């Protein structure tokens, strides 16, 4: 059986991100690093090439931008931040660049019937073309697509074959020893036999239900797949980060491990039929769940560490009445 989920200790290439695999001569080199130190260094044919960087904070990362002088040679350049390096191309302004991103690893891409390029695990590749009208053909497994478009001199065209639209969880909070579901939303231009992802889970956490990942992904539409994850009983309270990479695109999620849940969270995830908490199910305040909560008035509410007071019940009823939580 081919694995749809690969658990890895870390997702490669996270610290240094370069905006493009190739930059035009008149275009600044742009990259992001986790912090403002150390300063990126540029090299050409093994020789350092001093540049002046413009630095600015961008979210949790630092964005670096440097415009190379026009006389700086074209070809392969290397940028290094500490021990991490990345090689990019510098090309003439008159050329045209086609970047293919979000493709399934191993997909084949060809332009104008040329030799096919096999895309690597990053799910991306690029073509340096002449300006004009081109046909891009991509195929993977049993699906194939052809796109025809015009590209102008100095234009960079991004062909997105897959979009990791979002990563969510059935509950943002979870109790030690309990399960929850990761919810992945993707869109793929090519039909896929399954959803193949790489995930980085906190130590001791394990994926216990990956059946949905083996369902085919149809081309074009937004697809949602769930992956059940179990938190170890010994997990301490705190925030844990989960990373998922799909076709070279990475999404992160912060999960909070708590010793007690909020009353509303417990009610919204209560499995009335089984009489237990189910954090793998979507949160929803249904009539049955509210009715169950009302039956506990004055008694301890499980997994919350509190008794259900009339005030708490009123809050739950108001949330249900307003439609919050489904």
């Amino acid at each position, binding site marked *: 059986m081919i694995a749809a989920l690969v658990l890895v200790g870390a997702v490669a290439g996270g610290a240094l991100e370069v905006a493009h695999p190739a930059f035009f001569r008149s275009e600044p080199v742009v990259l992001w690093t986790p912090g403002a130190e150390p300063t990126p260094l540029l090299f*050409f044919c*093994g020789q350092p090439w001093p540049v002046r960087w413009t630095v600015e904070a961008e979210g949790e990362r630092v964005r670096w931008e440097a415009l190379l002088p026009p*006389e700086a040679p*074209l070809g*392969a350049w*290397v940028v290094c931040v500490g021990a991490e390096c990345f*090689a990019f*191309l510098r090309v003439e302004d008159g050329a045209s660049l086609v970047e293919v991103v979000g493709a399934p690893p191993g997909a084949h891409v060809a332009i104008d019937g040329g030799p096919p*390029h*096999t895309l690597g695990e990053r799910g991306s590749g690029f073509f340096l073309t002449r300006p004009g009208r081109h046909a891009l053909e991509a195929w993977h497994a049993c699906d194939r697509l052809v796109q025809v478009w015009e590209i102008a001199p100095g234009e960079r065209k991004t062909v997105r074959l897959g979009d990791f639209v979002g990563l969510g969880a059935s509950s943002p909070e979870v109790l030690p020893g309990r399960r929850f579901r990761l919810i992945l939303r993707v869109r793929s231009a090519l039909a896929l036999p399954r959803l193949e992802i790489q995930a980085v889970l906190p130590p001791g956490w394990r994926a216990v239900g990956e059946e949905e990942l083996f369902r085919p992904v149809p081309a074009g539409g937004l697809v949602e797949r769930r992956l059940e994850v179990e938190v170890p009983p010994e997990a301490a309270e705190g925030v844990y980060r989960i990373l998922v990479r799909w076709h070279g695109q990475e999404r992160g999620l912060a999960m909070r491990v708590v010793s007690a849940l909020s009353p509303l969270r417990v009610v919204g995830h209560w499995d009335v039929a089984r009489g237990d908490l189910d954090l793998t199910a979507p949160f929803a305040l249904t009539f049955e769940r509210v009715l169950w909560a009302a039956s506990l008035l004055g008694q301890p509410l499980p997994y919350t560490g509190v008794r259900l007071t009339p005030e708490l019940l009123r809050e739950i009823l108001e949330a249900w009445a307003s439609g919050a939580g489904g």
Partner: protein
Amino acid sequence: MSKGVGLVVGLLVGFWGLQAAEIAFEPAPRLLGTFALVVRGVTADQGEAVLFNAATGQRLVLPLERHGPVLRTPPILAVRPCDPRPAGQRVHLLEVTGVGELLVAATALGQGLSAAAKVGPREGRCELLLEAKEGEEWKHVQALGAGEYRVRLVCPPADRTCQPDPLPRGLRVRLGQTELTLDLLEDGNATGHFVWTFSSAFALDRERPELLFVLRWEDRAVAVAAEQARLILQVGEKELGVPVPLLPVEVQPATALLVPAGCRAQLELRQPAEPDEVLWWVPGRGWFAGVSLELAADEPLALGVPRYPEALLAKVFVRKGAAWGATQIAVSIAPRPRLLFVDPKTGEEIRGPWPAAQEFRIRMVDPLGFPGEALAVYVGKLGPQPLERRVELRPVEGGVYESAPLSPRLWQAKPGEFLWAQVRYPAPVACVVSVLLPLR
């Protein structure tokens, strides 16, 4: 005919055949020169001599006294009206109007003797001097540049009359292939000085293109290629050669440059330092200003077929102050070298994606302009962890350089990734030759 002339003619006719005795001018009479009449071959110890200027009619009767074997008159000085009279000297003044006048000397001794001579030019050597105007002064110089100059000829023999005399046969001037004769007039009545004033300058002929050295005087001008410019002045046998030094110009690279097609190269002025004007000429491309020149070698195409080598002669013209210099650099455009990934088994160029587990070689074809035995190529992987490394190519047959077999594993390359190889030309050529190898 005057009485004096009648006497002289009579003496000449009557005593022509008796030449054992003679009267002579010693030394030959010159303008402003002292001479005497000398009688030889007579027994008398004294007598008289008559000196007659046929042009002015002046007649001097001079005593003859014995001095050893000869009789001699007192010194006679030929002077013009404009010449200063010598003070305190015991000389007889013979009035002349200029050079070439006929003098006749006669004596009754020896049964009548006579002689004739013409007044010769002033004694002295002619000297040619070049002077440059510095402020209000003229200073002697030995080389020409741009500025105001004069050639001063100090030539007493050319002072012939009491009027400003023309310079006999003129001043011959030769500049490059141009030769001409200038008519000069004495700068005073009796100075013996002749002056030719001119200006000189460098001029850039943008049509040829060439640096010219131009002489201008009155309404005339002569221009020659500056590198051939040498002014030669000649008066009679006297010659003066004057060099026209140019500003030493040094360019990096010195004389020749090989530029691969599609590449750029930089020509840079090294000397002189801090020039005022630098102009480069590239045939077919035009004029460019600045201490450096970037040459972009386009692909020369004729009927769609590359034509190599294409050669051109770039020139640089440099001015510092009024001085100019120039030099030229031979630029050859050669085929652009090609880097190839090749199959180590077949030697064929790899044109499509190559198995990531299979070895390859790197080959360089037409490596013109790369010195040395080995050639360094930088090889890496595009994207994260490029693991760039220097790979040596060594010459194989046919002027081709090749690497040893290399495995993509050296770069931890996987299918879907690209390896690159590139080589950078040494300065002054700014050129990078790159090639990509997609892996499958």
